[in-house]
């Protein structure tokens, strides 16, 4: 089983995991970390490492809110260890899909989760417009 960590600037990741657990119930080896104002990258890294150790799993997927942010910088360093991957752009479809496919390899799970994150973003007006045009034809 792949361990899952969600990390964000402030409370987003913790709230997101709470929301997910409202739907799916309490999940094993799923943790959220918040970067607080004034918190160092080193401190966040230590917190990430603590969670990874507690997980006692072979592979860990870390999902962070923002490409380039401190959660991204701190967790990407962990990729020196090949059993860890990082995906940016954290959203709810990503977490839901990650829970479904966490018994796959980290590599395969990462591909699926990235795709879920992207396809969960839909411009509804545009999609409706396309649907209507399809009907007209």
């Amino acid at each position, binding site marked *: 089983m792949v361990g899952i960590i969600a990390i964000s600037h402030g409370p987003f990741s913790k709230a997101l995991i709470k929301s997910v657990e409202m739907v799916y119930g309490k999940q094993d080896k799923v943790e959220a970390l918040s970067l607080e104002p*004034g918190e160092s990258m080193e*401190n966040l890294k230590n917190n990430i490492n603590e969670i990874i150790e507690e997980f006692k799993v072979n592979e860990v997927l870390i999902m962070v809110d*923002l*490409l*380039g*942010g401190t959660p991204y*910088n701190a967790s990407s360093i962990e990729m020196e260890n090949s059993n860890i991957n990082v995906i940016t752009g954290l959203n709810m479809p990503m977490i839901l899909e990650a829970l479904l496919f966490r018994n796959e390899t980290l590599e395969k799970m990462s591909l699926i989760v990235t795709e879920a994150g992207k396809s969960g973003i839909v411009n509804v007006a545009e999609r409706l417009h396309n649907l209507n045009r399809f009907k007209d034809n």
Partner: protein
Amino acid sequence: MLKIARLDDRLVHGQIINNWCTSEDITEIIVINKEVANNEMRKTIIEMSVPEGINILFCDVSDAIEIYEEECKFESLMMVFGNPLEILEFIENGGRLDSLNIGGMSFKKGRKKLSTAVYVNDEELEILKKVASKNINLEIRLLPTDRSKNFLKII
């Protein structure tokens, strides 16, 4: 031209990429930090996150002194320092700054709070005072939209 020189021990991160770079139309960032300049993994991670249209360079203080004036001619430049000591080294060895933005010094053991998200230890405070004494205007401001606080009035 040099748009902003910033002290930030998180170096290049969300506030810089998503906020300062846009508000100041930055085209190039020079990260002046010997430790990171020698760490290929850290450099690659930061390079991957910088938006298209923004160059990023990493160097130590002596390389920075050699290149920054030339870069200023062609680029809308942001310089990011990771610690106060390298700023002092920069100006004591021929680098010139009119102002310095203190944008973030994380909480660590031994550091005391100066302002929100700005913590310094005694040694770092003395170094920053020295920097201020070189006729450089030190302001504390995390984001472009925050109110600028004068360092000398806070300490």
